[in-house]
């Protein structure tokens, strides 16, 4: 086991880092570290790397430890970290020196080996091992599909474990209030543009945003990584202003102009991080009014399956997670984004439920369809 681990690259998940930081890490792994490590997605990783100087890094670390209790983390920070915060993880001070980084990799391997060592009680009582049922095939196609989605990003679906709806404290964690986030302000601006047919300038703590008069485009003169802190932080909206302004017609292709749907979808994912908008029933079926334009939107894990299920027949968020074998946060994230675009609605009134379409009959070619799906995803 030890020799095998030494020979191959240690699989690292970079948590909360932007593309530039990831590229730097990638280059460090490939060059000075002679491929001793490689960046992979969150699910496939053997260890995590966190920039502890990043936004909400401490809470991210806590979420990560909860989601992957046996996975060691490499914590990078300008300032020394307390023993309590390190909690057995590996710390390297910034700026990162190659030798220290290599030593940290060796230490992560050692922790992994210790965790992977067989434990007598498990050998004696294999049936008592707390395995989750394998509800998704762990084949190459499946992994490739998830990589393709680019959707395992912690930023979009969070990392919270499933909740028990019977426990009030857990239930509370399943919700967020869109109105307290930038998402809510942009949604209000959209309504204003629609009602008054004017370009709307949104001002606040964040870089200025302008919505087109037809409420289909938005000008955002900042990158995701610059804007994201304002998207994930609640209560940044105090003092925000919305104003109708005279401006020339906006067009795609102009600097910073993107589809408002694409932007709002992402804002909702950032704000929700795997939670539901407040007052959404966990048990009421969800009606998908239309399929999202997936070729242009951030694709979260399981989004296509969820959309297909809800398009065929409304199911509640909890039931959907159960049926599709998905973590609840994947369902919640998708609902939040689709709801932000008015594409999905919780059918909390009994009258709504009467609109539910019939379930289509089962298809005869399930095995074939699965093989095609695997093929499509593995090639991407």
């Amino acid at each position: 086991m030890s020799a095998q681990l030494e020979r191959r690259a240690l699989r690292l998940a970079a948590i909360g880092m932007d593309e530039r930081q990831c590229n730097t890490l990638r280059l460090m792994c490939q060059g000075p570290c002679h491929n001793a490590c490689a960046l992979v997605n969150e699910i496939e990783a053997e260890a995590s790397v966190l920039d502890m100087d990043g936004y909400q890094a401490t809470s991210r670390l806590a979420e990560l430890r909860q989601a992957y209790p046996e996975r060691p983390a490499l914590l990078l920070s300008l300032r020394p970290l307390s023993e309590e915060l390190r909690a057995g993880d590996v710390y390297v001070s910034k700026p990162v020196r190659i030798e220290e980084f290599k030593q940290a990799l060796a230490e992560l391997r050692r922790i992994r080996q210790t965790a992977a060592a067989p434990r007598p009680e498990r050998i004696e009582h294999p049936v008592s091992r707390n395995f989750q049922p394998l509800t998704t095939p762990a084949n190459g196609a499946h992994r490739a599909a998830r990589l393709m989605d680019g959707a395992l990003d912690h930023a979009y679906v969070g990392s919270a474990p499933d909740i028990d709806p019977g426990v009030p404290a857990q239930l509370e964690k399943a919700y967020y209030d869109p109105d307290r986030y930038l998402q809510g302000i942009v949604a209000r601006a959209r309504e204003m543009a629609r009602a008054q047919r004017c370009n709307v300038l949104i001002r606040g703590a964040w870089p200025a945003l302008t919505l087109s008069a037809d409420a289909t485009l938005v000008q955002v003169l900042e990158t995701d990584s610059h804007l994201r802190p304002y998207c994930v932080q609640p209560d940044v909206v105090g003092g925000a202003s919305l104003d109708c302004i005279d401006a020339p017609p906006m067009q795609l292709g102009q600097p910073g102009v993107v589809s408002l749907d694409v932007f709002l979808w992402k804002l909702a994912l950032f704000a929700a991080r795997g939670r539901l908008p407040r007052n959404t029933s966990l048990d009421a079926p969800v009606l998908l009014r239309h399929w999202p334009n997936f070729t242009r939107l951030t694709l979260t894990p399981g989004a296509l399956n969820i959309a297909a299920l809800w398009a065929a027949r409304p199911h509640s968020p909890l039931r959907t997670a159960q049926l599709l074998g998905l973590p609840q946060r994947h369902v919640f994230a998708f609902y939040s984004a689709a709801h932000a675009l008015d594409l999905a609605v919780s059918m909390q009134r009994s009258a709504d439920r009467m609109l539910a379409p019939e379930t289509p009959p089962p298809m005869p070619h399930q095995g074939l369809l699965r093989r095609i799906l695997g093929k499509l995803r593995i090639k991407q």
Partner: protein
Amino acid sequence: MAHHKIIFSGPVGAGKTTAITALSDVPPIETEATASDHTRQTKDKTTVALDYGVLKLDGSERIHLYGTPGQERFDFMWEILSEGAIGLVLLISNARPEPLADLRQFLEAFRPFIDQAGFVLGITRSDSHRAPDLHTYRQHLAQAGLKAPVFEVDARQRRDVALMVEALLLSLDPGLEVPAALSAS
């Protein structure tokens, strides 16, 4: 061996040949010829018989990708080609004069097939021609009693084309990848 196929259809210039090329594992067989009729106003060459590509699965299994010729005078082929197919990828170009009329025409022609197979609608050239927007297309489908996936696509991008086919397959069975859980419900 069973003959599995997916049909790509749509009017002239919608991107059928390009989409099949993007998805096929082998160089597609194209039957394009120099356009001599009114098609010439849209493009120099057009498909006069059908396009053909292949998606190779594990082992020797193959999915045949057929692109129908776009001109109406070949519509007798549409029904023949679609017989026994898994589903229809319909491409409509926003750059054509009347995209919604194109949609109506193809929905009508393929309706019996759509009702018993998978269906996905891809809108091409929407980056340069914004109208009609997706909402309008969705409304047209709803009026026709269809709630199908509608995506803006660049037929040159394999990811866009593959996503359309994925959505088509999942429309037929949302529980793909997790058959046990869904079939138990």
